[in-house]
């Protein structure tokens, strides 16, 4: 009887010690791993703030403000803007390419377009917890989106983000 109780006690304590030891070791290891990842993580995380566009009889303006919520710096490479416009009385969809040097191209034809690009930072980079404001003026085409929304894609060196421009 005594022997049996002794064996039960030994098996309980032994199992508990082994289980707790394993768990504590696993926890310490995971915390270390997480911290290592955090320290090593330099990935930027670009998000969109507000984005607007406005049409006029001689220009189309696009305004967008982008944030970097990540930990690494993000450098703007280029941005596509897709919108319908009227060319020779026909409604056609065109793609505009805005590069980091402030040039604007018709991406379909490769033509350099009349307009301007203003970045709030030059060169256009966003460090961690900062913002980048981009104003694009296009003089050759008038955006003609029926739902008053225009889609763009901003490409950074380490991130890509979709921008929805709202008409004002």
């Amino acid at each position, binding site marked *: 009887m005594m022997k049996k109780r002794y064996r039960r006690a030994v098996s*309980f304590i032994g199992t508990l010690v082994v289980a707790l030891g394993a768990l504590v070791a696993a926890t310490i290891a995971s915390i270390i791993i997480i911290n290592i990842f955090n320290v090593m993580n330099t990935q930027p995380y670009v998000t969109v*703030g507000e984005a607007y566009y406005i049409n006029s009889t001689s220009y189309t303006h696009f305004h967008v403000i982008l944030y970097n919520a990540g930990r690494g710096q993000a450098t703007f490479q280029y941005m596509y803007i897709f919108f319908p416009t009227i060319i020779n009385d026909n409604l056609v969809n065109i793609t505009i390419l805005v590069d980091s040097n402030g040039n604007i191209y018709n991406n379909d034809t490769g033509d350099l377009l009349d307009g301007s690009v203003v970045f709030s930072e030059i060169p256009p980079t966003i460090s961690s917890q900062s913002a980048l*404001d981009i*104003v694009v003026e296009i003089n050759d085409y008038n955006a003609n989106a029926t739902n008053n929304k225009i889609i763009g894609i901003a490409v950074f060196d380490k991130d890509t983000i979709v921008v929805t421009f709202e008409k004002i």
Partner: protein
Amino acid sequence: MTFIGAVIVAIAFLIAIMLAISWIINSQKFYFTKPDIVVESATKDNNTIYLTIKNYGRESATLENIYIYEPRKGKYYIATPGTHVITDPTTGTDVGNFYITKTSVAPGGVLKATLEFTIVELDEVLKGIATFDKALASFEIVNYTAIMAREVEPGTLWKGVYLPEGGFKLIGYDQLMAKGNITAWTPPIRVFLGDGWRTPSYVNHDVSFIYDDPEHPGLYMLKITFSGSGYLWYRDLLNGGSWNYLYVKGKTVCIKGFVGTYSTTSATYLSGYAFEIDYGSSCSNVVISDDEKRYITSLSPYNSITSTTNILSEGIDYDGNRVKELVMFSYLNGPLVTEVNTDAESYYDEYHDALVWEYVVAHDISNADYIKVSGKINYYWTLYYSINEPAGFRILRIFAIVVYKLVNGEWKIEHYKSYSFTWEKPKQYVFNAVFPVNRSEIYRVGILFYDNYMDFDADGSYYLDFTYTLEHLVVEIGVSNPIVPNPPPIFVLAIPGEEVDSIGEDAIGASNALSNFTYYMKGEIGYVGIPGYVVVDSCDKFTALIMNPEPGREPKNAIVFDLHGNASNVCGYNFKDILEATTKYNLIWVRTAGALFNSTLDPGGVIQNTTPTWLNITDYGKYVKRTYGPVTFYDSLLFNNSLEVSGSFTLDVGDTTYTFTMLNATYNGTVDGSEPREGSVILEVEDPNGNIGYIVYNGVAITPSGVLTKGVGYYTATQLAVYPAIDLWIQKFGTQP
């Protein structure tokens, strides 16, 4: 068992550790706090744009540029805070001035910007984008000037900048019947003058009057002192009463709530219906009284009019304009109908009628400042038996536009505008009437049509009957100004050349600070839609209007926005004079900048007898401060709970002791007391004679511990000056909406 127990314990530990790891991972997620910028108002007055921008986020924002777009012209402009100019980027030229009080806006804070275009003439369609370091805000600009310049028809109410107005129109029979109710009725008591054989007759009088009956609005009251022998016969038709009479010789008789014929030459003749008959010089002896209407509504189609039909149950286009009218008649007449005489009042077979048709729109109205009723009525009268106009015939009203108010559960007539009979026929009225109403009450509109003429002679065969057609009704409901329904008299005290202190230490520059401050103040007063303010711009006006007016020309309950800030002397008047005027004329004097009390007052000095009450920011006030900004100060609830104020103190000013009581205070700054710390404090001030005025100290600073200390001047203080002063005026002098 022991093994299982150990496993359970281990699992519990495992769960705890997993939760901890989860928390750690969550805490490492990406995040970004940003301001949330909203352009609260964007208005254009002439060629100047006013912006009020608020930060609803939890981080400060710094303004970088404001883009103003003219989409129709294909132009745009950029206003830059650093240079204070507006440029046209396509030409590179400066086109105006950019006034701004500061460039950064704290959480909950407000930024006011003015863009004055001096070279270009702005288009009517304008849009904009304000770019901040971490936010964008778009806006459309309301053309203030266009609204202000609206044409106002003669006779209509002034319409302010804020003008919610609406209403409804009922055109033609179908809409009128679908959206309204029509009844026909008489007062219950049939009454006429006659002889002893109950035959109608004239009776000689000493005095014979007809009034609008104050107890029965819309009906008449007759008051006649008889000199001749005669009998006033009466009978209550509702309660089965039989004929009775009052011998009238030598009596003053009052017939109340009367509709019917009333004719006087040297004698009086009357025949109709009434609610009450009294006698005695003060009409205090009641002969008979019954307040219940006798409804006799009888609708029939045109082709089957009965002997008592008084309303057609179908529309007829009387005037051929393809709109069918609602037709009411006691003698159907008109260009396209076969004439029919009916007993419209439904009393035996007597065709000489007296009755009222009452059309009421089934649409309750509240929260309005005025109701305007327009419409079109045709009427045709038929003089039966005689072709001559009866002598002594009284011109009585034939219809009235009515506004009813719900009073203790009953609809009472509040307003009516009546139109009288003319011998011209046919007659068409296109009427238009405006009635002031109280926002807190409930109203309905309607029209009363009268058939006022029964028999003119003793045999009862000589009378006028009517046909009315109502074609359309337009009811306009308006609010003159939702914020300030009853505009206060306002003086803006800004006298060029007089002393100015502590009002111009911002980016605009102090050299023309007073004119800039005046410009801001006028904009702010206009923003809340108050017309008629007076800019006091000379010492003569200051004396004549406020400080020493002629007897009978004194100001009363006015607001004075004193833009001279901390000046100790304006046109020779000092703080002592201001206190005297404030209490004497019950003014609200707003010190838009400057110290609470100028202790250097000379002569006399100011001696503070007791310590002013300390101010404590309540927890609610802290919440308000964090959550909202000064733009919400208008809300009395927030306003009254921002700071705890209580108690009073006295000041000896010269040889006069004034008692000051703190009423309200508000605060625009961070709770920890760091800048900005603008605020407003309202004091009630009482002179030794018991006269009471109010002083609003604006721009006062409040220390971190909540102690009221002294004043500082800011252009941003403009808004803080206007709202508390108007709020106070409404509380103390204004009629509450």
